[in-house]
């Protein structure tokens, strides 16, 4: 199992009721990790336009998850 830190923003944070999660996961990629979280936290659910970053770099949903990673889940953005 890998140990990763997850940070949630805006609507994701409010839905989960927390900003930071320390997770033990076997997820191969960040999409699998997010699916795991959706199963664990009532209210957190997939959003088609969500974005993800790993270790402060924008990533795609196929990006691998490595031990010690810091994974940021962004609900659909709405700047401007």
């Amino acid at each position: 199992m890998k140990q990763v830190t997850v940070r949630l923003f805006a609507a994701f944070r409010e839905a989960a009721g927390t900003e930071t999660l320390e997770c033990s996961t076997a997820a191969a990629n960040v999409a699998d990790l997010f699916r795991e979280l959706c199963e664990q936290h009532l209210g957190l659910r997939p959003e088609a336009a969500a974005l993800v970053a790993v270790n402060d770099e924008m990533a795609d949903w196929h990006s691998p998850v490595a031990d010690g990673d810091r994974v940021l889940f962004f609900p659909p953005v709405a700047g401007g």
Partner: protein
Amino acid sequence: MKFQVSDTGIDASALSAELEDVRCGAMASFEGRVRDHNEGQEVLRLEYEVYRPLATAEGMNILNEARSRFDIADAVCAHREGVLEVGETAVIVLVVAAHRDAAFKACRFIIDEVKRRLPIWKKEHYADGQAHWVNCRIDDSAGAGTRSGSGP
């Protein structure tokens, strides 16, 4: 090139002064302001949440992409965070170029990419006391949002 996130009012004239360049005959600007309504609801104020480390880095990436795509000399963008009242400036983009066509195109490119890519979220506070994250269905069980994408 400069991208900044600010928790106080944006000083457009100060930003404009930074772009003075006698080689440039054109300056295009876009200013986004808080309006008093959205989708039929009266909006009292907006609340912007910004993840600054990535917003700033990705904002600079957008400005550099604009300079490589269009024949411009310089560009700046500033975005607010925190609570904004109706009428306040939320975002400003300024672009200078020798000629107007490149300035207009780059300005449009920058604001479109800012809205599409930066980790910035907007919560609308309505006159009826409700508040809602824009573009997100997660706090909307009626499923009003219909954006498509390649998410999880």
